[in-house]
């Protein structure tokens, strides 16, 4: 499998030279902000140190430059700017620290501001609960680059998380990434020119809706990785617009997202209980929806797999509006597969499943698919030799998952 990674990269490079490369990002007009008060940066750092629960720390309009990470450890703090194009925390030229802002505090709200060009992650929130991220823009302003930081908005091991009206641009891993968390809503947000637009990983109970994911390598990803504190599941992805996620993969090889073929609309990987409905998904050049196991990403770890379920199960795909896409899959294997079955000018159907399933499971994987142009089972376990286009085994239905209630009043 390790040989496939360079193959993907080569294909991506070929696509670039062939003129099918990524469009350049449309930058938000951040140059318009007033010149920031240089002294504010140090005052802001001290206010984070001295914050009291319940305190609101205002970030007035302006651009404030930091050469080191910021951290917050006090619960109940709100950081509030004058708008994501007006109040900018810039980390351009950052010399130390692995994040822009690192938070280890609960009942935290951050809203109406931007975090730009951090060396590493933009906003990381580690092991906390009751988190609100609202109207926040995280951006790497130089466009897609492997040199950009890994994650834009990055709550990890958090509980009760609301991300809304936010924007993530240019992350070299995932723009909006929620990992190892529980009870999460991501809505009304936009992810563009990231490797993964929105990624929900090893997270239990998440609703992802009314978002736009475009110009990423992969639009919306629902992943489980082995050897972590919890296995994710119960994820609903609905009413999103997921289109033209065809940017060449610029993730560092070795990261799980580096295995995502450019042109992936939605990817469900090794996750159980995922419901995908009422989305507009179009023109994703590899295919609009991929359902796969960790086996076909090449990131399975044999030793870790003992207590890890690598197979996607109880996946429900219905009522989406799908069009285009599948016409130019990324990577040699997928290109060859597409050409072999659909011809040079043909296209993959809306759903690609790698075919890995737990044979011991009585009811099968229960990957229930309706309202699509077709599905291809790539026969990963059989070495991709006997792909099948049989839809009948997917003609099932599953009980609907409950909506996430964050009980915020």
């Amino acid at each position, binding site marked *: 499998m*390790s040989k496939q990674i360079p193959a993907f990269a080569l294909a991506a490079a070929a696509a670039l030279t062939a003129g099918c490369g990524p469009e350049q990002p449309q930058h938000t007009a951040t140059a318009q902000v007033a010149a920031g008060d240089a002294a504010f940066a*140090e005052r802001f*750092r*001290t206010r*984070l*140190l001295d914050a009291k629960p319940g305190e609101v720390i205002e970030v007035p309009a302006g651009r404030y430059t930091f*050469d*080191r*990470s910021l*951290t*917050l*450890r006090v619960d109940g703090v709100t950081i509030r700017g004058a708008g994501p194009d007006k109040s900018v925390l810039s980390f351009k030229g*950052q*010399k*130390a*620290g*692995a994040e822009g802002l*690192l938070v*280890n505090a609960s009942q935290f709200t951050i809203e109406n501001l931007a975090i730009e060009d*951090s*060396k*590493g*992650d933009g906003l990381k929130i*580690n*092991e906390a609960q009751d988190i609100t991220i609202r109207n926040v823009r995280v951006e790497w302003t130089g466009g897609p680059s*492997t*040199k950009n*930081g*890994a*994650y834009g908005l*990055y709550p*990890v*091991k958090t509980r009760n998380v609301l991300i809304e009206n936010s924007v993530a641009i240019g992350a*070299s*891993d995932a723009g909006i*990434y929620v*990992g*190892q968390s529980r009870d999460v809503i991501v809505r009304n947000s936009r992810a563009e020119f990231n490797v993964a637009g929105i990624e929900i*990983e090893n997270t239990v109970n998440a609703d992802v809706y009314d978002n736009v994911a475009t110009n990423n390598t992969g639009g919306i990803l629902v992943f489980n*990785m*082995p*050897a*972590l*504190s919890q296995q994710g599941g119960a994820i609903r992805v609905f009413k999103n617009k997921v289109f033209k996620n065809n940017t060449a993969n610029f*993730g*560092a*090889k*070795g*990261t*799980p997202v*580096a295995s995502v073929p450019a042109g992936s609309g939605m990817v469900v990987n090794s996750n159980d209980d995922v419901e995908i409905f009422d989305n507009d998904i179009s023109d994703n050049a590899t295919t609009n929806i991929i359902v796969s196991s960790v086996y076909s990403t*090449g*990131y399975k*770890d*044999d*030793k*870790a797999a003992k207590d890890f379920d690598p197979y996607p199960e109880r996946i429900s795909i219905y009522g989406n509006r799908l069009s285009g896409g599948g016409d130019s899959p990324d990577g040699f294997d997928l290109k060859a597969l597409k050409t072999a079955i659909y011809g040079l000018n043909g296209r993959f159907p809306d759903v690609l499943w790698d075919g890995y399933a737990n044979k011991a499971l009585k009811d099968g994987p229960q990957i229930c698919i309706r309202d699509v142009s077709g599905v291809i089972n790539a026969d990963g376990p059989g070495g991709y030799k006997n792909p099948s286009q049989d839809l009948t085994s997917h003609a099932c239905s599953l009980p609907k998952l409950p909506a996430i209630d964050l009980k915020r009043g």
Partner: protein
Amino acid sequence: MRKTMLRCVVGVLLSMLLAGCAREAAAPAVHFFAEGQPPTLAEWNLLRVADGRLKLNAGVVPYDLNTPLFSDYAHKLRTVWMPQGQAAQYRADDAFDFPVGTVFSKTFYYPRGAAGGDAVLRSADEGPDLRGGGLELAKVRLIETRLLLRRKEGWVALPYVWNAEQTEARLMRGGALISLSLVAADGQREAAEYQVPDQNQCAGCHGIDMKSKALQPIGPKARHLNRDFAYDDGLNNQIARWTRTGYLRGAPAAAVAPRDANWRDPKANLDARARAYLDINCGHCHSPKGPGNTSGLWLDAATREPMRLGRCKLPIAAGKGTGDFRHDIVPGRPDESILLYRMRSDDPSVMMPELGRSVVHTEGVRLIRDWIAAQQGQCG
């Protein structure tokens, strides 16, 4: 002062401290501030600048670790002080249970080279040279002194930064970047952006339990302290010394207490040296409860499972920190191992640890390279 005198009189401290007490009879005792943030280090009366030296006040005991944390080649003078009659309770694996009122200090300094100016030596820390009663200021450049103090509500960290004249260290809670030029023995120069952490960032290492958010000392554990120190009156095992001087209760004989390897000891077992290095440099974060637990990579001394220690383990949320590699450790292949890649980097978004260094620890990298190279087997 009465407390100090009492200590001296009852012979709790040994001859050099006795002499110190007698000579500096006017020096006030260490002042423990139960609250607040004194703006200068001097107010604590822990260390004092006198006679061209940075001296330790009465009851302030220097110590060293078998394998210390790497911080941009800074040398460190570590001290502990406890209130009269108070002692730490021995614990075999965790930091000792220190009483309220305990003050640790760690002074970061560099030996000055012949070059003078801003140049400082890039050299291994052999332990502080306290002969003559303290650090000789003409020979060192003081950078900062960090205090870790045990108050009723828990441990508090305060960073003090020294002025260029080396007469005063002032509280700098927001941290600082200090540009240094490190000069190696062969004359090679390397620029370092030494980072004084801000007060919150102290928790990046000392907040070893993300849930409780409480800070903890890292160094004063049996396995790190179980070694000899060159006291004024000669070499003495630190655990034995602390016990004898009344700073430690419940400790077993040093011979049976846990003991980490000295990472630089060529005679010590390679695995033990590497594990000691990873424990002190990484294990406070990369542990089941630490901030690095999100990665699933645990490098603390207690972890035994090879996969948890990185062997054939996939990276999680490492971003470009993977260096295009697939496993944290690939047995026998250090140059394909993410762990070593991140140690070899000085890019803040790639390097590990995330805080506390801006240059590569060449000798540490060599140790971990040797350790991975010696591992057998392959990843599936």
